[in-house]
């Protein structure tokens, strides 16, 4: 480690530095609470950092609360304490949710720190700025870049859907909670007609009768609904359905505690975003969180990202997977087939919702769809109200 001296040696006010730096990290989009800022200050008081490296780790351990915000922290840290850093390192995409497995998340080593009296404002905002222009983007430019997907979302043509249908979609998501087939849970519950004898409870009950077991307490395994995971294609070809399906995702997340993902060229997890109470606000946030609205489609790569980052860790294990996509894939169908196979080994069942299936002359001949079909348990259309019941039935079938 290079031991670069801290720029301001003359009695810095730790609380002030901690507060101002935390504010910058917060402004860049990481949820830094005042409590964490206080913790940062106490950590610096406890172990006064002698090098920029020390300071980096003290800050990262105290201020960051999730793997996904490490990149934000690194960026702000380098801007503030690292002197001039090539903005190209930080432009473009924020890292996707699955953790990077290779390489280090350390900031570039600082050979010559050159921080002046005041903390420079961070320029880029946290959300992915997508394709930003050459050179250092001004605050204004990056702001518009952030807002544009949301704008696009607002102006997308959803006229085909009536209010009734949208309401239906919401109800469908609600019913999905009841629909997901149950799995046997680990916990047990009292049940007079249960098959197992609950010895512990029987003994406990016997204390009421002077230690003589008079009543046999019985129990059975509790049944819990399986997890539902919704993965929605938001590429250009799916545009007419995107808003409708997003409603489905949202109600699924709200009522069925489903997990929601969207993808076009890359995978974005929307579960947290869609959990917000207000539907419109949640949709707006979703638009911002997923930077690739109406882009091309890479289903295989997106599913791979899902399998690597989430599925294998347990998200897909025993779950009902619902893929909402038309199967138009610009990637290699071989990748899609392999990832579908992996997914089918993890998941309880895979439901593929393809709105194009509704047209009479549709045949799943597109490379992606043909590759995926062997691993799909139920292939339904879900393009209108009646077809949505099909989706529900497909999810519910045991």
């Amino acid at each position: 480690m290079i031991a670069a001296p801290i720029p301001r040696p003359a009695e810095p006010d730790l609380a002030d530095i901690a507060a101002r730096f935390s504010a910058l990290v917060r402004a860049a989009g990481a949820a830094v609470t005042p409590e964490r800022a206080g913790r940062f200050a106490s950590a610096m008081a406890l172990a006064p950092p002698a090098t920029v490296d020390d300071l980096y780790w003290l800050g990262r351990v105290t201020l960051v609360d999730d793997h996904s915000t490490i990149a934000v922290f690194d960026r702000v840290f380098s801007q503030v304490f690292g002197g001039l850093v090539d903005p190209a390192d930080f432009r473009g995409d924020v890292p996707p949710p699955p953790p990077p497995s290779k390489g280090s998340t350390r900031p570039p080593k600082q050979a010559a720190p050159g921080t002046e009296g005041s903390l420079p404002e961070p320029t880029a905002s946290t959300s992915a700025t997508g394709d930003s222009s050459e050179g250092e983007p001004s605050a204004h430019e990056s702001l518009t870049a952030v807002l544009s997907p949301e704008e696009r979302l607002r102006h997308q043509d959803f006229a085909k859907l009536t209010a009734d249908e949208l309401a239906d979609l919401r109800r469908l998501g609600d019913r999905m909670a009841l629909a997901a087939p149950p799995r046997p849970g680990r916990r047990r519950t009292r049940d007079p007609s249960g098959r197992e004898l609950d010895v512990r409870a029987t003994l406990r009950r016997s204390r009421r009768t002077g230690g003589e077991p008079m009543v046999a307490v019985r129990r059975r395994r509790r049944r819990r609904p399986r997890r539902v995971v919704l993965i929605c294609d938001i590429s250009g070809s799916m545009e007419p359905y995107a808003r409708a399906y997003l409603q489905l995702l949202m109600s699924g997340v709200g009522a069925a505690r489903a997990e929601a993902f969207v993808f076009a060229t890359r995978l974005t997890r929307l579960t947290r975003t869609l959990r917000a109470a207000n539907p419109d606000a949640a949709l707006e946030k979703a638009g911002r969180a997923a930077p690739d609205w109406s882009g091309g489609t890479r289903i295989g790569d997106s599913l791979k990202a899902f399998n690597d980052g989430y599925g294998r860790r347990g998200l897909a294990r025993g779950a009902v997977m619902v893929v909402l996509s038309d199967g138009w894939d610009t990637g290699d169908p071989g990748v899609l087939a392999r990832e579908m196979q992996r997914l089918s080994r993890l998941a309880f069942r895979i439901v593929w919702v393809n709105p194009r299936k509704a047209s009479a002359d549709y045949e799943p001949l597109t490379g992606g769809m043909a590759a995926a079909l062997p691993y799909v348990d139920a292939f339904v259309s879900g393009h209108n109200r009646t077809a949505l019941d099909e989706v529900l039935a497909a999810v519910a079938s045991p």
Partner: protein
Amino acid sequence: MRSALESVGYLADEGIATALFCAARLPQPLLLEGEAGVGKTEAAKALADVLETPLIRLQCYEGIDAAEALYEWNFPRQLLAIKVSEAGGRTLSEDDLFGPEYLIARPLLRAVEHRGPRPAVLLIDEIDRADDEFEAFLFELLGEATVTIPELGTVRSSHPPIAVLTSNRTRDLHDALKRRCLYHWIDYPDVQRTTAIIRARVPAASQTLAAQVAAAVQRLRSLDVQKLPGVAEAINWVLALDLLGLRELDERAVEATIGSVLKYREDLELVIGRGAAWVATGS
């Protein structure tokens, strides 16, 4: 801190050393995340070794509840007491039955009751496996270092435990839990550090073998394998090679022992397709 960790056989980088230092000194619970096999659990063990205090471990699993994590009343013993007092013709009040001697302390209560001289290290392993309701149940312990038992009252800790939580990120942890914790993400160590860790863990292995395996594991990570091999796999690999009496990693050694590193058939096919010699030597 780093050198102290090194002295107990845990080779830490600056990040993990800072995180453990802050956890012990602030004091504040520490949430460790990282890929499987990067040494999350080992970090807590090493911290306990450095502080020379007991490590109290709670392995979380789906459906874990208060009776398994915190405390439980010793029912058979209570029943026995009732019977004995009946036989002796004595009366037994409820307070007698719900005294500390009828309490079975589970890991969390043990950690709170630890009498020092230094606080115990409480490892709450794989918290993401427990139900999310269970997290809420930890708040009192993590925030106040107290445990409330309705029949007995609140047990206050004289030496609040240093809590280390680990998670494999199978699900998002609740914000309320994250808010209370320091956070550290453990990355895969680089080749030099992996070599050093292997040397520390498997003293019998030669420097050459350790370095070769560390480099080979690094190469495997560059492939598109489903489960990236971690430090634990590297150590297992060296142990397997050592058991077979192999002093060097060559093509045949790779073919014979690759199963201790890669656990998916697809991964094995991929690697064999790339060539065992490439794994062993990089060319």
